[in-house]
């Protein structure tokens, strides 16, 4: 009897530890700040981690993503995430406004030949931030194309050095 109780208790402890361990390792669901949630969303997308990606969203936005996921093979969804991130040269959080429970973050995605602007609305539930809506992408023409050298020697002065 004692052995059985001990075994049950041990199993319960292990399961509890695993449960909490699982919660801790779910990166998107533990975002303590709105910014962290966006970072994790990008990280999950880059690695094609569908669960982690979905965990960054909540509400209607998440349901929509789940519907999209259901409409295609999981691998296609994952590779779509990776493909969306792959050409990215950089990303800038250009605006962040947060209250205790809601936040708004504007992210500028920098590509080789264009930039995109996207606004994310987030909510804090149980201390965890998740994306509740994403506004449509707004294309931007950057003032200077990505990768432009700071100086290119003009042809007529290249030889003289002045």
């Amino acid at each position: 009897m004692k052995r059985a109780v001990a075994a049950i208790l041990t199993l319960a402890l292990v399961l509890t530890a695993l449960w909490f361990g699982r919660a801790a390792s779910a990166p998107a669901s533990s975002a303590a700040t709105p910014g962290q949630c966006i970072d994790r969303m990008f990280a999950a997308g880059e690695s094609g981690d569908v669960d982690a990606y979905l965990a960054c969203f909540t509400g209607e936005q998440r349901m929509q993503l789940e519907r999209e996921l259901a409409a295609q093979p999981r691998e296609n969804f994952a590779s779509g995430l990776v493909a969306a991130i792959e050409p990215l040269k950089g990303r800038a959080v250009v605006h962040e406004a947060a209250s205790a429970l809601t936040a708004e973050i504007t992210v500028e995605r920098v590509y080789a030949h264009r930039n995109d602007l996207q606004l994310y609305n987030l909510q804090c539930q149980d201390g965890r931030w998740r994306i509740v809506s994403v506004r449509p992408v707004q294309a931007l023409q950057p003032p200077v194309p990505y990768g432009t050298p700071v100086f290119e020697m003009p042809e007529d002065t290249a030889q003289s050095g002045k």
Partner: protein
Amino acid sequence: MWRWMVGTCVAACLAVALAWQFGGEGSGSARAQSQEEPGAKAPEKKGDQGNPAQPAPGGKRRPGANRRPGAGRNAQNLNFKADPPPESPAAAGVPVLSNNDSYDDFASVVQTSDGTLYAAYAAYYDGHDQIRLHKRLPGGQWSTRLHVPLVQARADIWMPQLAVDAKDRVWVIWCEQTDQTRTKSGNWDVYARAFEQDKWGSIVRLTHDPKPDINPHVTTDAKHNIYVVWQGHSDNNGDVMLCRFDGQDWSKPQAVTTGSESDWYPQVALAADGTAWIAFDSYRNGDYDVFLTSVKGDEVGPVIPIATSKYYEAHPTVACSPEGDVWVAWEQGGYNWGKDNGYWSKFLPGPDGKLPSAPAGPAGAHPEGRGPGAALGSTRAVKAAVYRDGKVLAAPDLLKVLPASGLGVTAMPALAIGSDSRVWLRFRHQNRAVSGPRRATKYWVEDVSYLTEQGWSKPVTLAGSTGRTSVFSRILPLADGGLAIAYSSDQRSAANYHQPIHDQVLVWSLAKPEDRPATPELEAYEAPQPPPNAKPWDTEAEQAEVAAVRKFRTTINGQEHRIVRGDLHRHSEFSWDVGPAGDGSYLDFYRYMIDVASMDFGGLTDHQGGGQYAYHWWLIEKAADMYYLAPRFVPFYSYERSVNYPNGHRNVLHAYRGVPIFAFQIKLDKPGVFPGVGTADVLNDDTKLLYQYLHKSGGLAIPHTSGTNTGTDWRDNDPEIEPVVEIYQGARNSYEVVGAPRVHDISTMKPSDAPGGYEAAGMVWNALAKGYRLGNISSSDHGSTHMSYALVFVPQNDRQTILDCIRKRQTYGATDNMLVDVRVGEHIMGQEFDSSSRPTLVLKVQGTGKIDRVDLVRNNRYIYATSPRKREIELKYTDMEPETGLNYYYFRILQEDGEVAWASPVWIHYKPE
């Protein structure tokens, strides 16, 4: 957008340049045109700048370029002739008390009841100061000297003066620094010591405050009680202090003024009723104004405004007539003195968003009109007024009696009234050294005038009085109706207007004038009108911006840091190239830094510490001790070392006093005088030798104007010694990279039109490409004010800490009070570190206007640019494709109004896992 702005600026620049071409100030010959004159056309030939003494006449002058407040007479007088230099002391029979074993300054003279004259002065001798006392003997010749025993054997003193008490004792009153160490400025206090019957009395310490008690002025009343006023700094701001000697005891110091704004240079005179009238200038209204107050018994009277326009009004002097009039004279300078002034002012839009229609600034501003503010050396005119029955009355205009052919520029007045009611006025008077319009060829002489029924008498120029601006002479009406003047001169000649020979002290006695003492009818004093189109500076807005920067706190390596604002490239009368015009005196530097620009630190960087002239360097270092007002203001011991391209100009700074200036390593085939400004004729390893020197002395060097004839092709660098570059200076341009804001644009302008010339290899991007670790600052250089800032993140504001933080490159440069913070994780800009994750750079900016552009550069390529159109931004950029290995990143911020900030780069060794 930024290219459009640069293009617009360039177009405006061309228009302005054309306007200048046809109405502008000529540049004279290449030889004559100093390379250090901001905006000057580059010399065609590189060479020695040490003797810009023979400028060629000629050239065009922009109408009104020499306008000054109240000076209508010469406004259109465009072709000056050189003024006649003063007579030599020998020719005029003026006794020289000095015998050339020392550098002598701060002369003072008194007369005892038997008519005997005594004179004293400060003598810089063998690395320390002495006070030397002389007596005029019955035969008229002066005695040999007697040394006043001071507090310290190797003393450091300031402004000694004399007074005679009721017992005919001659008191010497002086400021002396004590408790200084090799690494720390000491305490300046006021001391007094009497000389009586061939014996010295004991030293009386008049002040005990641990902060500087300086700039004393001494006088006596009719009963020969002695009054001393001075400038105290108990709260790190200047307050007027007073103490008295009643024949028995010295009183305790009495605060005559208090308050957070600075009061400067008090002067005292005693009325017949025993009232001590004290004149001083003050920054209490957001610009320099002249005030009068009084002390009777222990009661301090109200502060009476005398001259309170938005022109610079300072250095007052006061004298009381037997009839009860209180006379005040002061110097009036430029409008918005010390505010924005520099090369780019003329290309930037004004408050109405429009570019200036002409390069000229307001009258009295920078001689070349570069901006809404006036340069520190802007024209001066001595003004005088009488306070009578509660009213301020204007004294006759001194300008009317100055030579019609001259500049009409006067400064540093001193009034005295004899027992016969004659009003005497001593002042400095600027002479042109050569004919023609060049502004730099000026020196100062000493003049004396007195009042007659018709106004001021024709001034007498004192023999052998050539020198700089900052000469504090004393005049003494004599019992016989004459005047004794104790003054100093550095004996410079008109031909070498910029170059001192040796500071000496002279005492001249003027005989009683034949004219009867008289005061003409006086009318109410009227403040000068603002120059056309000039607007008073918005001081409140600026104070709010400064307060925001000062309030900011951040954590670096677990320690709280703040941002301190400074300027590490300023000049004064001690720089031979511009000489005693344009940049003001070495003492003006402190007014400007402490009050006008509200700087937290700074360095006066005269060329070779004042032409490698020992006394100038001594005064520069002494002043840096006197005005050590940490944490409010921290001055460095600094100088500019100017070797031409490709070696480069550098400013050198130290956190402690007494490091000799590192002389140019001149080639031995160079004839002539050792250069006092700059040179191209140095040994190949000159810069490397400088680095070696600074490694031993703990100093820093900061290269500047790198993309000009005074710049460098980046052949040398030592990250320990040269951790930052002056990427922009108000006197000229930015040297970041062509196409960037405030960089001379060679796509639309000739390279040779760039002020100081153009050297492509000197642009800072080349240094970064070579792998140099260079942070960014900006600072002013000649003529420019209030538009170049060096900003440093520091845990506390003292010399060594600032220097250490500059060495760590925790810096940025800006043209205005912009707050910029760049972080990568726990690291701040300027740092170098390894990272296994992609860098995320966080930029915070609090602008002084809406931000037009933010650019992020990685490895000399733009990787991100945005136009936020907001005053405050926080931006977080993650580089998704950093290069494996070294990446350097920096942000540049451009406001809609053209103000710019350059963050220091951060160097990240990216090692992905």
